[in-house]
């Protein structure tokens, strides 16, 4: 930051003041946080079953497409039916996009990292085609669809700002998933599959069924993120509705160390960084690329921290092996 000629302290204070202390700033932050939270919840869920879903980007776009179709072409429904229906459409489309790699992994043994990554490009291009041809608004200057029906728009959360109900969807999801792993047998099964698939098979848990289920839900949650972007923020489907949320979600999920509460906090942090970016550029004259560099450094530092901690931990456990004689016959 000093290199760009700005005062770093002032820059940080602007960043956090504008993104967390300011009414509109909070709305902005929550809007960025919503898709990040939903997508990273999905990534973490897959991670619990030992699957790395890096296809969030494609799943978000497919989810947006699903929501847009229902939001555009279904009419005459009251909001309390239309909104859930459109969200459901997003969930299903994203779920299919996550379910395909899940099926391929579970039945054919294809590595999910490769399939989810490749499906990103397919998903993005399908959406791109849809908004350029069949779904384009008449006379539109650039490729986007018409505005979705009013009954499918998510309510605004903080009056006067743009904050929409997507964030509550994310928080509810995180809470449900958190308690799923805390007290349900399904969460237990997922964890057994993730920690030791051989033991899962031995215990009579169907590993392939769990992997397919988890990947479909994981994709579905990213789809919900796409749906909430279309229904809450943009009200139309664009060619690109996610500036890389899908990849950022992987970082968030990995940094949260297996905790859904951690995902909420990390998403808030990343959301704040994203919403502070524009202000920073405007007020402190710092180019937004620098902010992304800061974000990258943050991830790097936390990752190094985790790695070091892990090393310390493994050293401790290896010592514990030495300590075993404490429990003598």
């Amino acid at each position: 930051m000093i290199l760009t000629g700005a005062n770093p302290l002032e820059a940080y204070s602007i960043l956090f003041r504008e993104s967390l202390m300011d009414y509109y700033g909070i709305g902005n932050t929550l809007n960025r946080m919503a898709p990040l939270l939903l997508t990273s919840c999905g990534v973490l869920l897959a991670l619990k079953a030992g699957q790395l879903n890096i296809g969030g980007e494609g799943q978000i776009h497919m989810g947006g497409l699903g929501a847009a179709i229902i939001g555009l072409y279904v009419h005459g429904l009251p909001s309390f039916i239309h909104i859930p229906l459109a969200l459901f459409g997003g969930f299903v489309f994203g779920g299919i996009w996550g379910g395909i790699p899940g099926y391929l992994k579970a039945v054919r043994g294809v590595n999910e990292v490769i399939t989810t990554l490749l499906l990103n490009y397919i998903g993005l291009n399908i959406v791109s085609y849809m908004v350029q041809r069949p779904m384009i608004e008449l006379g539109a200057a650039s490729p986007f669809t018409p505005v979705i029906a009013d009954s499918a728009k998510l309510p605004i959360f903080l009056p006067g700002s743009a904050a929409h109900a997507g964030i509550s969807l994310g928080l509810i999801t995180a809470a449900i998933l958190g308690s799923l792993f805390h007290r349900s047998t399904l969460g237990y099964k997922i964890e057994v599959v993730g920690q030791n698939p051989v033991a899962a098979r031995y215990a009579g848990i169907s590993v392939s069924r769990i992997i397919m289920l988890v990947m479909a839900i994981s994709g579905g949650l990213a789809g919900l993120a796409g749906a909430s972007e279309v229904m809450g923020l943009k009200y139309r489907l664009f060619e690109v509705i996610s500036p890389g949320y899908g990849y950022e979600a992987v970082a968030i999920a990995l940094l949260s160390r297996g905790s859904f509460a951690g995902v909420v906090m990390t998403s808030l942090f990343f959301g704040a960084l994203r919403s502070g970016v524009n202000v920073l550029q405007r007020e402190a004259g710092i180019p937004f690329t620098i902010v992304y560099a800061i974000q990258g450094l943050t991830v790097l530092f936390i990752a190094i921290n985790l790695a070091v901690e892990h090393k310390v931990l493994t050293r401790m456990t290896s010592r514990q092996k030495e300590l075993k004689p404490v429990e003598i016959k």
Partner: protein
Amino acid sequence: MVYLRLKGITKRFGTFVANNAIDLDVNSGEIHAILGENGAGKTTLMNILSGLYQPDGGQIYLQGRPVRFSSSSDAIQHGIGMIHQHFMLVPQLSVTENIILGTEFGSKLNLRQKANEIELMSRNYNLQVDPTAIVGNLPVGTQQRVEILKVLYRGVKVLILDEPTAVLTPSEVESLFIILRQLAATNHTILFISHKLDELLDLCNRVTVLRRGQVAETVVNGSVSKAELAKLMVGRDVLFDLQKPPPNLGTDVLQVRNLHVEDDRHLAAIQGISFGLRAGEILGIAGVDGNGQRELADAIAGLRHITQGTIKLEGVEITHWSAQQRVRQLKIGYIPEDRQKIGLVMSFSISKNLILKTFNQFPFSRHGIFLFSAIQTNTHRSIEQFDIRVTSEQLKVNQLSGGNQQKVVLARELSGNPKLIIAMQPCRGLDVGATEYVQRQLLAERQRGAAILYISTELEEVMMMSDRIAMMYRGQFVDIVDAATTTREEIGLLMTGNRRTNTTTDLVTTSLIETE
């Protein structure tokens, strides 16, 4: 002549004393055994000797001179080399490349010349190895020779072997012993770590027994009996001959007819096995590892597809039942061969491991929601009943010793009073005390009326535990014999696939239950 002397070696980890003032003298040309239970401090002591750990107190002397090793390469330069239980070899590289790895620092490498050197060396030491072979393709016994050559190549005079026989077949063990005796004859000093008493008595000159980090005693081989050694090691009397009441045979529990099963590579692993097993009976399955034992156990437990034949449990055909169905029925307890890879989720707590098979049943859960009080009661009861030694009930399984891990598996598999118990190598890697415990539990289950399939590669174990013994060879039963009347020699012969000339078919037929 004393070659290596340890004086007052002490090593602490935090507040725990792993080695407490250990004194040890080893003569050159001696095979000296270090005996002790898991966690008695054997490995710590050897890691100090090989330079991996620095002692907190005490002194090491080599030929009377005090030495200090700052690293394992430092120890090797002083002529002390360690052969680990898990080989430190690169499977993709050739024997020659593995042996010279880390010794060449020049920029030129004449691999052919090195290969010739190694061939010559291996002939000198009588350790036949093809220096150009890829290590990954060699059998385990030969890989171990490569490990030995590796340290000899570095000019080592003291060889430390950490439980070297754990991975070997009986014939490989024999050839290893021949090699070690030859090395000792050429003035190498060998430190042999093990908890298998028979091997030590067979091989070593002297035995130092460690107990709880201290030297219990050093004895000359031949002056003590096996039972006395075990007592020194455990600190109490150990019964080698489990007093086994005569079997109280009940109804037929398991009937296997003409079973065919494939292994992971879709090769026939079991080819037409038939047998019956009655309540209150232990059928031992002996045989060298890899003759289809694993596939047989998996097939009965429902983890492997059965290509032909039938399995009946209490008269009900379960041949094509899924593992889930069998788990739900709770009539089969399966102690898998590898508790860490198959039987337990190492990162889970004891509680979570205890409910691995019953988590979706009442009282542990209802409508998919856990009922934690019942789970906690279960943990508490299991820890008490199976004497699982823990400092806290919240411990993760990977913080337990091998014996206690196996107790967790036992507690889970024996709860719910299974009709059939499949025990696959249940005592592998356990020390004397834990082995005795596991065997007693299984015998108690036999008294209760469980039918038990006891699979092990350790002949002694099988002979001691079983009522009948089946020898498995290349996917078939060579024979089934009565454990009370058979001899070691007879079984040894059958294990290699030689059928007896006077086949006691009566034994085989009586054991096959006719299905109606």
